[in-house]
């Protein structure tokens, strides 16, 4: 709680928190704000924005409400972004802990795996994974996590290596604590904060990757996403560019919110150290 109050003291933190809180509320109350299926045909096709009060942002080629799409797209973006980041950090923590703790050959092997995942462009990997397995929300989440876990894994291992040498861990070892117990009780809580500090960047990257995937037509076809809306608008880019521009703005605002929040966190952390 104190962290959050400190966070609100920095202008970046406050702005980021405000943006994300609003987006989360929009995502939670999407069915209330815009009832009905956002993919249904609601009116005449290609209505211009800011003309018809019933469709403030206009309609697309099929007559679907752009505003409704953006509101419901918030859900997908945030859900996929956050879920993928959680999955990536969970995998990264496990691998990093295992590597840092096991040492020896196991560590060597795990580090090579981490290396391998860092030299493969994560977007290409996600692309291949989704295209091979088929597009659905869980697959997209997994595909994004697959390309994002290596950084937290590396960081976790570095943390473990530095913490492992500290006195309290040595003390725990002397009193005969089981290694797994030491890892869980003594090391994980201390290794976690810097890894979590990375999480905002991972969330932002995940949101962007999800959008890029669905832009290329590799999103779940049954739900509305900002990326697919941008792709859909691209077909009529010359006549109605607004169809691509609005969901893009939503995307940019979301990512800016995440970055601001992480800047704010960075400042409060730096402040508490000084």
């Amino acid at each position, binding site marked *: 709680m104190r962290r959050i109050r400190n966070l609100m003291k920095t202008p970046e933190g406050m702005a980021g928190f405000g943006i994300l809180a609003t987006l989360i509320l929009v995502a939670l109350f999407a069915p209330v704000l815009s009832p009905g299926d956002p993919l249904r045909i609601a009116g005449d096709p290609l209505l211009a924005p800011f003309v018809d009060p019933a469709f403030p942002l206009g309609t697309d080629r099929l007559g679907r409400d752009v505003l409704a799409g953006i509101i419901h797209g918030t859900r997908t973006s945030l859900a996929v972004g956050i879920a993928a980041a959680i999955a990536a950090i969970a995998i990264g923590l496990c691998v990093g802990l295992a590597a840092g703790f096991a040492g020896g050959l196991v560590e060597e092997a795990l580090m090579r795996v981490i290396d391998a995942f860092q030299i493969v462009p994560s977007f290409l990997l996600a692309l291949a994974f989704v295209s091979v397995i088929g597009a659905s929300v869980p697959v997209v989440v997994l595909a994004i996590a697959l390309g994002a876990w290596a950084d937290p894994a590396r960081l976790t291992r570095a943390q473990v290596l530095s913490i492992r040498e500290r006195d309290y861990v040595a003390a725990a070892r002397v009193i005969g604590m089981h290694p797994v117990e030491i890892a869980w009780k003594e090391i994980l809580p201390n290794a976690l904060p810097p890894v979590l500090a990375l999480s905002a960047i991972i969330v932002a990257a995940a949101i962007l990757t999800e959008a890029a995937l669905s832009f290329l037509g590799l999103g779940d076809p049954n739900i509305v996403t900002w990326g697919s809306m941008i792709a859909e608008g691209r077909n009529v880019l010359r006549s109605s560019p607004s169809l691509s521009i609005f969901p*893009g703005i939503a995307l*940019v605002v979301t990512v800016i919110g995440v970055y601001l929040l992480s800047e704010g966190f960075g400042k409060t952390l730096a402040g508490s150290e000084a």
Partner: protein
Amino acid sequence: MLLIVILLTFLLLESASGDAVDAYLLSIGGGDATVAQSLRQAYGLDQSVFARLWLYVSSLARFDLGWSVAFDRPVLDLIFERLPNTLLLMGSATALSFGLGSALGIVAGARPESAGDRVLSTVSLILYAIPSFWLGLVLSIVFAVQLRWLPTSGIETIASGKTGLTRAADIASHLVLPVGALALIYTALFLRVMRAGMADVWALDFVLFARSKGLSRSRIVLRHVARNALLPLVTMLGLQSAAMLGGSVVIESIFAVPGFGRLAQEAVSGRDAPLLMGIILVSAVLVICINLVIDLLYAALDPRVGASEPAA
């Protein structure tokens, strides 16, 4: 390292190869069991997993990346045909973003917390949040559709018969938008890294020592602070090369640049798993090569790297 990537692509290929046969059969309008059987044999699907892995690795060792189902051509040929365009795109985007980003980073980092620094930091944060594919669309709306200054797609005017310098100029004009779209986000990133690096260096003792020598501010900023802050930037360049390669997939598909990334997208839509895996493998090799070059560059910039005997 590369072996693990190979294993990874093999596993993905494994889970896909069944589909490829089915997709192929579907595309030729269905086929009888014997055709399917012979196809499976051709892919080695009737053998054990390990035998297939061995087959895969040994053919890779002979630089045989397999046969593209969608193009009906060897994967490696296709990749080598497309690679130069991507390298051109990535190279230009890297040069542009590195040059511009570090220059602006020096401007911002020269006086931390000044008004100029604040403005540049805020702008770079916003730019960093813009997905390159969307930026690409917006740029093409503005410059190609509305203003009609630049071509929207392709790498050069088809069958224009241009040669020499005019051809180079033609290619350059085609590259402006995709390079711009790809470079902007990295410009913002490099700016931020450079600025943060300079802020760290300012706090070090040797900067105070340089000030005590009465050196001019520009010499301190450029020769002492920026010179040191360049090192983390070069590291970042290596780390980002994989991401940049991934980013070029979307950019190439927007601007119809016949490159490596667009090939990946075509592989996806053609359900061409061997081609896709070949692309992943080659890009991993490419990233390794880029990082080797970066390591050399780093060693050239940082005298502390590498074994060196104490003088005297």
